[in-house]
C-alpha cells in the first residue's frame, strides 16, 4: 500500500531543509524530486565534501569509505538527521554503518515509499534522541537544584523560624511571583544569606 503523501505528513515536511550528497545518477535525481515533492528545500552536493553541511535538517548520502570522518559533528551530538543510502543485494560494511551512526537507511533502487519511510524514521529518531539528551541535562540540573532547595529550606527554617512545609511554600510562592525556577529562588536565598551573615 502506498503511504499517503497528502495532508498532514506533507505539511509536516513543509519547512525542512535537506542535503543530498550523492553522485547525480538516476536514483539521486529521483530522491531529490521526491524530497521536493514533500516541499523540502533540497541542496545537492557532489563530489562528497570533506565536511558535510550541518546547517540542515536531514542529510542523505551513500555509505562511502571514510564517511564518519566527513560527518562534521562528533557521534552523540548530531546536528542533523542522517540517512545512509545503500545498494540492494550487497552486504554493506557493518562497522562503517554503525560508526556513521545513521538515523535510517534507504535502499537503491530508490522508491517513493523508501524515501518517505527513511525520512520519517530518521527525523523521528533524531528528534527522540535529542529529547532524551535534553531530558538527561534537565535531570542533572534538577539534581543540583534539589540540593540548593534543601539548603535554602534549612536557612529559612533557621532564620525565619518557618516550618518545613512553610519554607517550601514560601519558595514556591516567590518562584511563581517572579516567574523563576524554584532552584533560582533557592540560590538567591543562599547567596543573600551568605552575604548577610
Amino acid at each position, binding site marked *: 500500500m502506498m503511504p499517503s503523501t497528502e495532508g498532514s505528513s506533507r505539511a509536516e515536511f513543509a519547512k525542512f531543509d535537506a542535503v543530498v550528497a550523492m553522485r547525480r545518477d538516476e536514483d539521486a535525481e529521483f530522491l531529490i524530486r521526491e524530497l521536493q515533492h514533500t516541499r523540502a528545500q533540497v541542496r545537492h552536493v557532489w563530489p562528497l565534501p570533506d565536511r558535510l553541511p550541518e546547517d540542515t535538517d536531514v542529510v542523505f548520502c551513500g555509505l562511502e569509505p571514510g564517511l*564518519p570522518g566527513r560527518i562534521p559533528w*562528533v*557521534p552523540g551530538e548530531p546536528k542533523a538527521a542522517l540517512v545512509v543510502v545503500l545498494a540492494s543485494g550487497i552486504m554493506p560494511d557493518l562497522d562503517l554503518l554503525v560508526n556513521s551512526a545513521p538515523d535510517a537507511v534507504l535502499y537503491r533502487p530508490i522508491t517513493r515509499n523508501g524515501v518517505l519511510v527513511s525520512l520519517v524514521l530518521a527525523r523521528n529518531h533524531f528528534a527522540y534522541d535529542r529529547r532524551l539528551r535534553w531530558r538527561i541535562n534537565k535531570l542533572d540540573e534538577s539534581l543540583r537544584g534539589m540540593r540548593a532547595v534543601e*539548603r535554602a529550606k534549612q536557612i529559612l527554617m533557621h532564620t525565619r523560624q518557618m516550618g518545613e512545609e512553610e519554607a517550601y511554600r514560601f519558595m514556591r510562592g516567590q518562584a511563581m511571583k517572579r516567574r523563576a525556577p524554584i532552584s533560582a529562588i533557592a540560590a538567591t536565598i543562599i547567596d543573600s544569606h551568605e552575604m548577610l551573615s
Partner: protein
Amino acid sequence: MAGFKSRGLGPWRVGVLFSRSGCTAVIEQTQLWATLLALEEINRSGGVNGREIVPVVYDPMSDPATFASYAKRLMVEDGVTAIFGCYTSSSRKAVIPVVERLNGLLWYPTPYEGFEFSPNVIYTGPAPNQNSVALCRFLMERYGKRFCLIGSDYVYPRESNRIMRELVRANGGEICGETYVSLRARHRDFVPVLSEIKRLRPDVIFSTVVGDSTSCLYQAYHDAGFDPRVIPIGSLTTTEAEVAAMGADVAEGHITAASYFESVRTDQNSSFVRKYKKRYGEDEPTNMCAEAAYFQVHIFAKALAHTDSLDTDLLRPAVLGTEFDAPQGTVSVSETYAHTDLWTRIGRVDSHGRFEILEQSCGQVDADPYLIGSGRVLACG
C-alpha cells in the same frame, strides 16, 4: 619482550588520550606515562590471554574539541572501544557523547566534581565525598572557618566550589571571597587576587586552580609574603607533579587532599614508585592522577582476561564490583555508579617537596558521586 602466542588473533588495541602539550600537559603527561607503564608490565608478563595490548596514542593538546575528535577517530578509524584518558572535566564532557553513542568505555583517572554518571565511563579518581569533605573538615579544625575560594574558570572549579561552599556553610564557616582566573593565567594575574585576599584575611585559601597556572598561584602567594602555617592553600589537584613544577620552597606547608601520595606506605606503592622512576627518571615523582591511570589499566586487564572480549557490553559488567590492590591500598569499582571506592588522605608538603600524610581514612571510602548520603555536616572521623 615476551613472545606472544599467535592464535590467529591480533593484539588488543586500546586508545590513550592524555595531552603532551597545552596548559594541563604537565599532569597529563604523568597519566600517559603511568598508563604506558602498566601496559608494558602487562605485556611483559605475557599480555592478556596470550595477546599483547597495543596502545593507540594521540595528543589532544589540552583542548576539549580535539579530545572529542580524537575519541571519534579512535573508535571509528582505529577500531578501539576502550579509551584511557582525560584530565579536565571539559575534556571528559567532550568525549562522553562519543563513547555513549558508539558504545565505548572511557577510563577516567582524575578527581572531578561528581554529579555525573555514564554507562560508558569507569571513574577511578575521587568524587567530592572522597576528598572535599575530608579537606574541608581538616582545614576548619586546623586553621579556621573563613575560606577564600580561587579557581580556574571552567566547569570543575565552579562545581567544586559550589560543593565546598555548601560544606563550609553547613558547618558554621564562611566564604569571604570567590575568584576565577583563566586556565592560562600567569603570575601577574594572581598579584591583584592575592592582595585582595590579604585584605579579606581568610583563615584558608581553597584553590581549584589547575594546570600550569597552579605554579603561578603558589609562587605569587610566596612572593606576597603569606605564611602557609597561618593561611595555607588547600587543594584537591595540587599533586607532586605541580609541586615539582613550582619548587619545594614555594610549596612547603600547603595542604592537598587525595587518595594517593607518593609517600604512601604499601608494598604495591614501593613497587610502583620504583618502576616509575626506573622508567621515567629518578627525579620524576608519582602522583594521584598517575596512580589512578596506572591501576585502572590493571583493573581493565583483569576484566579483559575474564571476558576475552573488548565488547563494552561484556567488559563493563566484568569490571563492576572488582577489587584491586592498588598502590594507594585496596580499591574497588562500585556497581551502582561505576565510580571507585578509594582512600582519603590529607597531605602537607614538606621541605623536600614530598607530601607528609597527616591523616588517612581507615579503609576505602565508598564513592557517592551525587552526595546522597554525605557532604552536609562533616562527621568527624
